[in-house]
């Protein structure tokens, strides 16, 4: 039995530079795994060990996802092996094409009982990858999961909704997106990093998974975000009381405070 963790190795848009016309340049941003995916691996490790399953990491992305620094970073967090689909064509592919390839890899692995993913992607934040992946596989999907138990066939999951803590049961195979508070990922130690170097890595190209994805749309124009222009007025804080008074009168003048 296998449990899969779908993870993302991508740069943080915080480090991208945005041109005047809204072009986005990631060339100076360093790709990494976000904390949310590290959390998913941590949860996956616990669940796989309890169920006696092996834990397989799967990712789809550009050239960087297949670099040893990337696969080792993932493996050192407790995965038993990784399968990476690496091709420039997947550099900034959308949710549907990425989910389509992930589904294909999961099906190819065989005997997968559960797919676990982090709850937010670092790029577009639509939080739809697990739902689309589950639907492509024809498996039930639950998101925002904080605690997860799995015995090999049935899973019990709990999550906090505004109305309270909801506990659900489901029978696998299934796709589960876990929230950031579902585990506290530990930083990998020296031993983990050394062990990671010896674990199996399978690299596939776009050609291995049915070819490069067709572009999802035609970009007609790009721009910088509109939204209200920010004034950037600095208030001197040497004297906190004076700063407070200045701020409050500015807010009142702007009608934001009565």
């Amino acid at each position, binding site marked *: 039995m296998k449990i899969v963790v779908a993870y993302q190795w991508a740069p943080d848009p915080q480090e991208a530079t945005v041109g005047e016309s809204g072009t986005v340049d990631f060339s100076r941003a360093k790709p990494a795994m976000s904390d949310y995916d590290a959390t998913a691996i941590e949860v996956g490790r616990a669940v796989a060990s309890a169920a006696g399953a092996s834990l397989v990491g799967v990712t789809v992305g550009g050239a960087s996802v297949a670099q040893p620094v990337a696969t080792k970073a993932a493996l050192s967090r407790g995965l038993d092996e990784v399968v990476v689909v690496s091709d420039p064509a997947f550099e900034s592919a959308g949710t549907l094409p990425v989910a389509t390839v992930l589904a294909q890899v999961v099906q190819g692995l065989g005997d997968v009982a559960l797919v676990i993913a982090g709850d937010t992607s670092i790029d577009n934040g*639509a939080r739809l990858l697990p739902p689309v992946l589950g639907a492509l596989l024809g498996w039930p999907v639950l998101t925002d999961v904080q605690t997860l138990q799995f015995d090999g066939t049935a899973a019990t999951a709990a999550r906090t909704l505004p*109305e309270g803590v*909801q506990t659900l049961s489901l029978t696998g195979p299934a796709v589960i997106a876990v929230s950031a508070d579902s585990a506290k990922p530990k930083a990998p130690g020296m031993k983990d990093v050394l062990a990671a170097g010896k674990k199996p890595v399978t690299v596939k190209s776009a050609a291995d998974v049915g070819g490069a994805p067709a572009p999802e749309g035609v970009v007609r124009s790009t721009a910088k975000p509109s939204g209200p222009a920010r004034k*950037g007025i600095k208030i001197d804080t040497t004297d906190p009381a004076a700063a407070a008074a200045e701020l409050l009168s500015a807010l009142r003048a702007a009608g934001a405070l009565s």
Partner: protein
Amino acid sequence: MNTYVLVADSPAVSELVASAAKLGRPVVAVVVGPESVAKAVAAPGVDKVLWVSEAAGQAAEAFAPAVADLVAADPGVVFAGRKPAERVLLGAVAARLGAPVVAGATAVAAEGGTTVVTHGTYGGIAVATVAYDGPVVLVGDGGGALAGGGTAAIEAVAATPGPISVVSLAPSTVEAVDLAGAARVVSVGRGLKSADDLPLLAGLAKALGAELGCSRPVAESLEWLPKDHYVGISGQHIAPDFYLMVGISGQIQHMGGCRGAKLIVCINTDKDAPVMHQADYVLQGDLYDLVPAITAAV
């Protein structure tokens, strides 16, 4: 061709219905939930309700394949909110239609079979207008309750649930917060040294007549405030008259949830924090000096 709004358990979909109506096609709401929700959604602006009845103990997610079948019978552009079950229904439709997934849309138009969407990219650092061949699925702000007095027909649809069920719901003991609807919001970040200092912020919020929010780590790593209190791309999307950010660095994932605020004020010790370039009023200094001073001055 129809435009769809997916509804899971909660009829708070006014923004989605308003966006759907702009495409100028019949608006069909696909509702998974009790009959009361179907009735609340049969509101002005909605032309038809397809209702999948959910019995007690069932999870809306269990009906995702059924919802995908309903939309696939006559595909069109699909809108849904960001709540967990709403996203699962929307994902099922995207997979069935082979439709692109779009978040953060600010404008949607239909040009024949082409759907033209203007949306934020990479969490909102830039904006793109993209022409998609065929329908797309859009995830966005649900909005509030719909107006009463609608005449849309409700058509009950029989569906078999998938293998997910609700075992229990332990009602929340904390009061729910409506950040999205608040006129003023004060949020606190990791600049706060201890949960013991939260009353400082609660006091400021109270004095200003504001709701108290936070950054994601304060809710999810430190667990100092409930999860529905954090602002950002994966949390609450707010557009208050004014937003005061205290000890928050202003990473893109946070700012993606508050870009619509009319006025942003920040308090931060670090002159190089990203938020210092994204605010209307910048107070560089220690929150432990400035927060009490502002509270006292109101």
